[in-house]
């Protein structure tokens, strides 16, 4: 090859190279230009947007509470019976007088026992009478009720006792008299007299007469003789006469004393007899009185115990009758209409007397439900708010209304107790999930919660602003500072420099900074 050709070829190669490079370069530029939008779009974050729109914020307080029914009616069985069959279940609705339980047709335990006891009482009464030898008249008196009242008998007994006391006193008097009489009798020294009193009295009088006359004469004569005596013989004779007179007096007086004593003896004896008779009579009286008193005591005691026994028997009889009358028929009926909240016996089980057979929630009666919430949650509620029941389709016709907000006793500082009145088909002990809260007033600017962002300048939202450019519409994320006025679970009410109906960015495929270009979801 010549120098020249090499040089030319070199130049040609260079030109080719330049031409190729230029072509490649230009085509790349063309592609880039034509697809620039697409390329750029791919690099931009994709955002989803929502309108800023007017709306209401409903912040609800949700929770679960247990229903407590007011005063369920308890059906109580008064006897111990065995259940034959149970006809309703807990939760069933019953009408008034609907049979809820069937009982077995046996006599109740109580009735059996009462009857047995009655028989026992009667037999012990009868055998008691026979064994204790109570007189039949007492029995009749008790049975016929003629025994006289307690008061009467007591009065009679008192009388008897008074009489007994008097008689005893009399007896004592008699005894005293007898003793003194006997002493006196002994003092007479006479052991026995055979003559009569009149004879003795005659003798006494005679003697006394003699004493009064003869002896006196003698004494007078003796005195006279004494006075007229002049001689010694006369004096001695006078003295002898006086002595004779005195002797005679003494003799006569002795006789007198004897007659007197004998007379006295007779008198005393007869007195003694009288007193003795009186004492005997008194003793007899005493005996009678004592007997009567003892009899009265015994018989009134008998009558009393018999009467008591008879009364007890009567009562027992009455009880048996009562039990027989009360004896529940074989069915237990519901006394009210409502819903059975609990029925705790099964067929074959024994129900004790006095046990609650079933509890019935009277339909139409109100139930209450309480729920504990925080103080802030309670602050957003008002008395009278109607609560929504969760799973409302499941409960038909159940309404719950907030009737009171109270301090929660278990957490007084932080919590409040909400009290709801619940009406409808609910049962005691059931738990209900509700949500309660008022719809707020309408706010002119509300956004979904995911649109609210925050940084050190406060809360803001990103709205989409668009600007036209030669290459088409460009979307820019613009920051707008907002203040959140109210929020609930899905959206928040905001205030800020917004007209309403801007597009606000809710989510983005990549983090978006204010002022950044974005693209909208297709």
């Amino acid at each position, binding site marked *: 090859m010549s120098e020249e050709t090499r040089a030319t070829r070199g130049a040609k190669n260079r030109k080719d190279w330049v031409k190729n490079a230029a072509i490649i370069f230009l085509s790349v530029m063309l592609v880039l230009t034509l697809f620039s939008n697409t390329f750029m779009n791919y690099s931009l974050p994709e955002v989803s947007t929502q309108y800023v729109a007017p709306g209401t914020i409903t*912040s*609800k*307080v*949700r929770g*679960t509470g247990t229903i407590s029914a007011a005063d369920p009616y308890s059906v109580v069985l008064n006897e111990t019976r065995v259940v034959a069959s149970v006809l309703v279940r807990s939760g069933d609705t019953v009408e008034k007088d609907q049979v809820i339980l069937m009982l077995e047709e046996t006599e109740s335990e109580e009735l059996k026992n009462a009857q047995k006891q009655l028989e026992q009482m009667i037999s012990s009464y009868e055998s008691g009478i026979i064994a204790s030898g109570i007189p039949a008249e007492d029995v009749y008196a008790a049975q016929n009720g003629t025994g006289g009242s307690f008061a009467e008998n007591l009065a009679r007994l008192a009388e008897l006792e008074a009489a007994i006391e008097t008689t005893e006193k009399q007896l004592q008097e008699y005894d005293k008299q007898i003793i003194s009489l006997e002493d006196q009798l002994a003092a007479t020294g006479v052991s026995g007299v055979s003559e009569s009193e009149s004879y003795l009295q005659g003798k006494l009088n005679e003697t006394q007469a003699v004493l009064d006359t003869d002896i006196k004469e003698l004494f007078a004569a003796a005195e006279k003789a004494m006075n007229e005596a002049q001689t010694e013989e006369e004096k001695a004779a006078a003295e002898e006469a006086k002595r004779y007179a005195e002797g005679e007096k003494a003799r006569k007086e002795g006789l007198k004393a004897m007659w007197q004593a004998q007379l006295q003896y007779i008198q005393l004896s007869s007195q003694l007899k009288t007193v003795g008779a009186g004492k005997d009579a008194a003793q007899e009286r005493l005996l009678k009185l004592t007997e009567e008193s003892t009899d009265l005591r015994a018989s009134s005691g008998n009558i009393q115990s018999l009467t008591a026994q008879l009364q007890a028997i009567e009562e027992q009889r009455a009880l048996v009758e009562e039990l027989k009358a009360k004896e529940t028929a074989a069915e237990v009926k519901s006394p009210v209409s409502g819903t059975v909240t609990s029925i705790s016996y099964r067929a074959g089980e024994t129900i004790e007397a006095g046990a609650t057979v079933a509890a019935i929630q009277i339909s139409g009666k109100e139930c209450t439900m309480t729920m504990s919430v925080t103080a*802030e*949650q309670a602050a*957003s509620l008002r008395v009278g708010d109607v609560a929504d029941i*969760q799973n409302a389709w499941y409960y038909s016709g159940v309404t719950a209304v907030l009737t009171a907000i109270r301090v929660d006793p278990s957490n007084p500082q932080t919590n409040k107790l909400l009290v709801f009145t619940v009406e409808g088909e609910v049962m005691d002990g059931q738990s209900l*999930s509700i949500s309660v809260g008022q719809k707020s007033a309408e706010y002119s600017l509300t956004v*979904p*919660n*995911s649109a609210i962002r*925050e*940084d*050190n*300048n*406060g*809360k803001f939202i990103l709205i989409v602003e668009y600007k036209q450019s030669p290459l088409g519409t460009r979307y820019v994320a613009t920051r707008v*500072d907002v*203040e959140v006025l109210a*929020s*609930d*679970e*899905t959206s928040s009410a905001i205030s800020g420099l917004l007209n309403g109906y801007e597009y606000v960015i809710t*989510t983005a495929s990549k*983090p978006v*900074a204010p002022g950044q270009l974005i693209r909208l979801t297709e």
Partner: protein
Amino acid sequence: MKWFNLFSRKEKRTAVVAVVSAVILAVLSGVSAYIKGIPDSQHLAERWSSEGGYTQLSVFYTREGQPDPMLLKNFEYSLEEKFSTDGITPPTESARLWVTAYSSFGEVQVTSDRATVSAAAVGVGGDFFLFHPFKLLYGSYFSGSDLMQDGIIIDEDAAWQLFGSSDVAGMTVTIGGAPHYIAGVIRREADRMDKKAGADKMTVYLSYDSLSRYGSTDGISCYELLLPNPVSGYGKQVVTERLGISEETAVLVENSERYSAEALFKVLADFGVRSMQTVRIIWPSWENAARGWEDVLALILVFQSICVLILAVIAVIAFWAARKAIGVQWELRKAKNRWGYEETAETMD
């Protein structure tokens, strides 16, 4: 291209090495920057304020050191006073100066009309989702300051099992017999680091109140804070002083600083002992992921350092050689000048 041949082979090789190092450095820096941005849970401070001035901190507790929500509330009340004393005020009237959240871990059973799902659960309080901005598909997050605390966040899998669809925000489920509603549906993180970190399990986020009542949990094991940081270390100091971090029962991590070169060098310094755990803490999945990335970034840092070193060495050598060359040229010019040597085009060649 003739000037290309002016350089010796050695020089060419050096230049190639330099260029390659520079390229690798650039690539690594790019990769490092990208990786640092991956865990969203570590960047609240940047999201909160692009100018800086805030820091994100996390406190992790052992079983024994678990705090009571009341204790945390007391600490938060004291922050108001602390910041106003120190003259720190929010930029606008309604803005918040600090944000906190706490979380506890456990399990819960969620029942819907058609299925029951047993899932790992995170019981949260405060503004947990500001710290953890999961990708919301439907609905919205809930917060501890909401009126009712019965909202839950589930992921797509749970939504599918419970309802057969993902668009289930607002529907009701039962947890422990108490009704709760779905506040939002999120997408689960799924990269390798997250999988290993345990973020791949089906997780339900519900209020701490609900979890402790209706599920099973130990107690609060993580407390996260966003605090103003006018000077470096301020936030950390506030927490250490006022909350009290006991060495045996708590670990404080400053999330905003963990990917700085300084922190990464510290990670390198802990090489060998980093896998040891002397405090009985089980890290939450996001912390595990962040730590995993720390290791990766530390490794990248090593290579970056090597590249920088190479470039530095080459630069020094080149500079010195250039200096030498310039010196020679200068002498030559001086000599030429002295001798009145005229430079022509030929001599320039």
